[in-house]
């Protein structure tokens, strides 16, 4: 039994040391990792949404947590006035996993500016067509305060042929954002103001 004791001890010590050192590294690198992620993953989407270099926008970031899900929200300021938001959401139900998208919102008109794909793992040539401008054009100008649905389910969004799963993941992500905006608009603005 003492034999086993020694084995267990050695293993536990090694594991604990490794976990401790890793958590140290992780803590020291955490900010940088997040910045890198924002820069490479969200940056391009943001830049396209607001038509301005991402570097000006990446710092304008808050995180809103709702129902256990965290939504990163970026904002655009004209002077002191917050004129636009970009909310990121993960649309569930995609063929290769969730589709992460960013939805731009024009606060002046209360409409959707457009949608950009942050990341996806859909099949090239099929689900990957969600990236195509033609498909995404359907988002421009959607009013806040409602929800969307695929044409097949009586809604307004035309799905991509052969990629129903990907399309419905897009709809799912959009509805999450619309819902968040409708219910938490004040809280978000307060959070931004608080920075």
């Amino acid at each position, binding site marked *: 039994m003492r034999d086993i004791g020694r084995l267990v001890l050695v293993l536990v010590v090694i*594991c604990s040391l490794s976990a401790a050192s*890793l958590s140290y590294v*992780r803590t020291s690198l955490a900010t940088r990792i997040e910045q890198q992620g924002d820069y490479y993953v969200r940056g391009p989407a943001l830049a396209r949404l607001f038509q301005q270099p991402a570097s000006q926008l990446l710092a304008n970031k808050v995180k809103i947590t709702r129902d256990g899900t965290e939504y990163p929200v970026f904002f655009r300021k004209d002077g002191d006035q917050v004129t636009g938001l970009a909310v990121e959401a993960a649309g569930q139900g995609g063929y290769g996993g*969730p589709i992460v998208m960013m939805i731009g919102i024009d606060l002046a008109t209360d409409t959707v500016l457009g949608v950009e794909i942050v990341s996806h793992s859909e*099949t090239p040539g099929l689900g990957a067509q969600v990236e195509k401008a033609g498909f995404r054009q359907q988002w421009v100008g959607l009013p806040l305060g409602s929800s969307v649905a695929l044409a097949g389910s009586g809604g307004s969004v035309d799905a991509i042929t052969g990629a129903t799963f990907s399309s419905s993941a897009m709809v799912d992500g959009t509805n999450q954002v619309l819902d968040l905006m409708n219910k938490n608009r004040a809280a978000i603005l307060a959070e931004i103001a608080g920075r």
Partner: protein
Amino acid sequence: MDLIILAVGAIFVQNILLAQYLGNCPFCGVSKKTGTAVGMGVAVIFVATLASIFTWLAYYRLLVPRGLEYLQTLVFILIIAALVQLVEIFLKKQSRTLYDALGIYLPLITTNCAVMGIALLNIKHGFGFVDMVVYSAASAAGFALAIILFAGVRERLFLAPVPKAMRGTAVALVTAGIMSLAFMGFAGMGK
């Protein structure tokens, strides 16, 4: 229905061996005889499913609540290694026949990237529990399918007049490439 589509997709379209390149070491090492390949395939189905369940639980019940997602690699490999060994010890004592048929392949699975890969993919895809179980079993079944088919081909290949330099692993890889090409034909099936 969704689950069936998920399964078909995992077996054929995103075949773990031929499309995701996971588990190639045993694919080349253990595919020399059909019998061995069958044993290995079945053992992988069993272990991959079991390991996925445990790693999934560990990830969502242990790591996520404490914000330790970055430790997943470490935790997963520990769990898989311990689990495989436990199953092996248990089988050896309880059912020698089962052990001789499947158990002997268990050690090979610890370092089989297919098993670890499936566990990681489960997390990456963000599956719920049921989806996860189906996906894991189906992916492993895809592995089994590919390795058994491949072993059949290799048995024939063994006696084929292959140029000397291409004998063995080289021609096996080329064959795998052709099989992979065939599996590409499944693209678009499922979802």
